[in-house]
């Protein structure tokens, strides 16, 4: 059923949030998984886990992105997580 207009943010905000969830969510997912890989080691167990956990994580990131009110906050949060993970990976390796 169509959602009540009251609970929807503006169109531009929604599109931006969705994009943040899909694109930003992808980078957040990969960055966190790589970080875990750096810490616990990239054995077969890690690769096998990645095959399913990434998709669940990615979806969670999409859903979380939609729960925010302002799109820029999502972008900021996801960029922050991605870059801090990237920095940690760089330092740890």
């Amino acid at each position, binding site marked *: *059923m*169509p*959602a009540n207009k009251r609970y*929807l943010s503006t169109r531009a905000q*929604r599109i931006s949030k969705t994009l943040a969830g899909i694109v930003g969510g*992808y980078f957040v997912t*990969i960055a966190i*998984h*790589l970080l875990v*890989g*750096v810490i616990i080691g*990239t*054995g*077969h*167990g890690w*690769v*096998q*886990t*990645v*095959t*399913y956990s*990434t*998709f*669940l994580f*990615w*979806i969670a990131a*999409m*859903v979380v992105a*939609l729960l925010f009110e302002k799109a820029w906050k999502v972008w900021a949060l996801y960029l922050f997580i991605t870059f801090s993970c990237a920095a940690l*990976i760089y330092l740890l390796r």
Partner: protein
Amino acid sequence: MHHTHTVTGMMISAILFVIFLAGAYSLFRTEIQEWENPAARTAVQHNINYDRVVRNIDNSYDLEPHKPLRIFPVRAGHPEIEVYGETHEEGGGHDHFHTHINPQNYRAQGEEPEHETVVSQTLFKLHYLDQIPTLGLYISGFVALFFLLASISGILIHWRNIVQKFYAFFVGKRWKQIWTDAHTVIGVISLPFQVMYALSGALFGLSLLLLLPSVMVMFGGDQTPVLSTIRPELGLEISEQAPRAEMISLNRLQEKVTSDYPNHQIEEVAISHYGYDDAVATFYIDDKTGLMGSGSLSLQLTDGQVMEDLSRFPYQKGYSGSVYDLLVKLHFASFGGMLLKVIYFLLALLSCFMIISGVLIWQVARDKRQYSDKQKRFHHRVTKLNLTACLSLFPAIALLFIANKAVPIDYDGRGVLVKQIFFLSWVVLAAVGWKWDSYADITKKYFLTGSVLSFVIPGLNGLVTGDWFWLCWDMMAGVATIDLLWLLTGIVALFAVSQISIKKEEAEDKGSISEKVAEPAI
């Protein structure tokens, strides 16, 4: 969340329907292969002379010795041995080859099988949209991913009253209520099934997207560590300096594997560095009955020793050796025999019905005064597009099976012709359906066409090949299964058609309740 669920659902609806329906038939891929190809109907020959296969391949091709050779023995649905490998090219390069080998005279006959049959292949490829060049696999992967999003947001909408929804039966209510209840009840019942498919489907479609970053960042662009997780023998380090060595007989190794695992069948034999000191043969085996029943055994070709650290013994695999295999088994339903496949098939059709009911909820919920006529026309068109494109696939698949028997088996280029018949008939049927205006009418006419065509299939099979399903039940169970499947489909679809007209007179409404009764069983 409502909005997310609606938007993702409507975006993927028709494609997801096609994927589920084509996938439902692909569950019976082996049986369809037996049905479509007369050569596959003869009893499977189990004793294959692997040494002779390797010898003949070595004689026919200029093999690249450092590259692996993969041999697929004769199996149900595959009457010929198949070999994949790489040849040596002038100037150091190498080229892939694929050949079929006749199990009687062991002659390599090139890439094309003796008779080209395309029914199972077309449906299987349609399942991951392979007919769309390059992008098809990724589109299907993303559809699976958003299917996961739709499932999860669906749970988030309904989790509070998920137990009551399980018992919500849907009779004598308004149309919107009927569609909504049908959608949620079936959604709850088949939820584990659908989440499993969304996850494994996304993995098969988008593995590149997933693995590329790990390969680039973690392994410096070398994909071997990732691939060897799934196929352990790919992680073998081959030394080009290894001396030539005497190989022991592959047939002896095969006998050893068969006596150690008498209930397993050999799916594939992968040979690396044949003829050298570090040569290894890896036997991929599967018993098709347990979730952990698949595995691989790697044996040294110099002394026949089993390599413990490289092998994955069935039922003794650790976590790191079984996740992917488990996902494969769950996705392809290769662990519980025919009964499981039938359950999977019915659940897949339930999912198809869920997609259609979701679209109808969307349309009915917007059939109100606050929407302008222009908007309503748009909703009507989208719904009709979904119905015509999706439901016309049912008679088109039936026509694909008919075309397999109607086009003579010796006709050159029959593969292309059969595929053309299938896709053209799908387009034509969908276009014709656009002329019919009420949803009930569309459903009824497609079901009627599909039902009539379904009855033709077992009859035509009997006439052309002489293997009537009551005669070949013992010898060719696969063939009889497919015939009976279509016979039942025809009966159920015909029943559905009769129900639609009754309900229409009673309710004078768009849509059809009987589809709910019919769809699960087709």
